[in-house]
């Protein structure tokens, strides 16, 4: 246990009352906007004082409202990456990156080149933030936080302000960061895709309270998640990459699937989120479909849901899949428990 937080905070009608502990690796704070996840992150950073609360990090007490302990932001050495980058407009990219090092006595010049290279921002160093694209700004902001040699990295929806293309530009850098840096991270997000890809643990917040906590696979399949995103997370290993078509083949227990992602190294473990609304069910081996991924399995349960839909739970050689179909389809196809079927997933639905 590295970080432990318990906090209450009232803002008008909104009340936050939440606590969790986290270890090394990436902990995701997951929830809709207004669930209090950013407030909780700001309390950890020291940007907000809790009404009542206690915060410890590596056995040091940073906040204890009972004993009137409050370590100010600048002494905590927690890196914070904001949704809106917040680069200093009057400083060059290089000076933005060096900003944190002006206030620490640590001299680690080797880090600079390494981090700049890791984030691919070598070419931007002498520019001002004004002319940078959203993705470039966010990479510089990440570098700036890292170069202040933080003990913990707090990320507040770092991708939320970016479009899909920019998101897929930054995500690989975040993955590299997680794998190469030993700094623990708290990652605030409302995106199942991001959480699936990055997090080791997920904490779900709703209306200022912790609703669930656990591994991404456990938590993201639970009913507390937004219906649109309900699904499963399956782990697999990259078998091969097809550079020409910019896809990768990933081996699951259920078989091989194709991911629209280029440049994944062979043998790497990946988590794939498959939303139940993206899965089709066929009773015969389908032919002539553009959908690339067809997995064999059989129906374990049929769970009636609201509004004439049914959740089909499928066992595909040990991997569990969910599919959401209408009651009409269930009747037409004659779906029953135990029946062998084919689950069809468009590769495009597997975009992270």
């Amino acid at each position, binding site marked *: 246990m590295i970080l432990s937080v318990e906090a209450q905070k009232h803002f008008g009608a909104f009340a936050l009352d939440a606590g969790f502990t986290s270890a090394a690796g990436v902990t995701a704070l997951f929830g809709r906007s207004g669930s209090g996840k950013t407030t909780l992150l700001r309390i950890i*950073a020291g*940007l907000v004082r809790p009404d009542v609360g206690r915060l410890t990090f590596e056995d040091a007490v940073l906040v204890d409202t009972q004993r009137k302990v409050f370590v*100010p*932001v*600048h002494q905590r*050495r*927690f*890196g*914070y990456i*904001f949704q*809106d980058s*917040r680069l*200093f*407009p*009057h400083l*060059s990219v290089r000076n933005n990156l060096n*900003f*944190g090092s*002006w*206030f*620490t006595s640590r001299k680690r010049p080797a880090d600079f080149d390494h981090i700049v290279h890791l984030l691919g921002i070598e070419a931007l160093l*002498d*520019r*001002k933030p*004004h*002319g940078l694209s959203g993705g470039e700004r966010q990479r510089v902001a990440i570098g*700036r*936080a890292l170069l*202040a040699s933080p003990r913990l990295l707090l990320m507040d929806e770092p991708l939320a302000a970016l479009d899909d293309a920019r998101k897929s530009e930054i995500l690989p850098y975040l993955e590299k960061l997680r794998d190469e840096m030993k700094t623990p991270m708290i990652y605030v997000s409302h995106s199942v895709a991001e959480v699936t890809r990055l997090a080791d643990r997920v904490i779900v917040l709703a209306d200022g309270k912790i609703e669930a906590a656990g591994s991404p696979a456990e938590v993201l399949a639970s009913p507390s998640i937004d219906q649109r995103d309900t699904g499963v997370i399956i782990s697999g290993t990259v078998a091969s990459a097809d550079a020409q078509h910019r896809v990768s083949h990933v081996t699951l227990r259920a078989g091989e699937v194709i991911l629209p992602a280029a440049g994944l190294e062979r043998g790497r473990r990946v988590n794939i989120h498959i939303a139940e609304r993206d899965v089709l069910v066929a009773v015969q081996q389908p032919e002539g479909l553009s959908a690339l991924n067809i997995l064999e399995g059989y129906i374990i349960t049929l769970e009636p849901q609201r509004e004439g839909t049914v959740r089909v739970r499928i066992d595909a050689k040990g991997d569990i899949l969910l599919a959401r179909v209408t009651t009409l389809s269930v009747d037409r196809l004659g779906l029953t428990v135990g029946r062998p079927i084919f689950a069809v997933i468009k590769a495009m639905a597997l975009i992270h």
Partner: protein
Amino acid sequence: MEWLHLSEDEWAAVRLSVWVSTIATLVALPFGVFVAYLLARGRFWGKSVLNGLVHLPLILPPVVTGYLLLIAFGRRGVFGAYLESLFGIVFSFRWTGAALACGVMGFPLMVRSIRLSLEAVDGKLEEAAATLGANRAWVFLTVTLPLSLPGIIAGMVLAFAKAMGEFGATITFVSNIPGETQTLSAAIYTLTQVPGGDAGATRLTLVAIVISFSALMASELLAHWAGRRQHHDPVR
């Protein structure tokens, strides 16, 4: 063009005015930044009282301000006597008194301009600086101050221009002594009171226009440069 040549006394008035205004502006600057910061960011009891006090010279008749300065900073004034015995600083009937009067009169303009630009600095950037390890003083020096530079420059120019034009408070506080306290405005006024002084008054008026206009141009250039520095890549 012979009539354009300034006499020795006229030169003395011009030099004195520029000197007094420059000193008044520079000495007032740190106080102006400090008070503007208190008014922009501070939350304390008596903030509106401080705000009122700062603006007082703007709304009082200058002669009244001059008389108040005389009472407070004259030889036997409340602060004047102290300052003389402790630091040897004398204001009455000296150029230092003229600088004090000019500084006080320009102070509200300076504070207003700096306060506005401090308020316009994005607090989110200061938050970001704090997460990077900067304490409040460093946040101010590395983020807040550079970002409000254009407003600070504008405030300095306003104070300088006000000082160049100051008349009522100065003449009430330190009188009108050629070579010591007779500034440009006082010299022009004096020349208009004597027969045949018109040519001198016109010359000094032209000088006053040139100086004020130059200060304005310089401030435009500086503000432009400060703005460019913030928002554009360096020219390569």
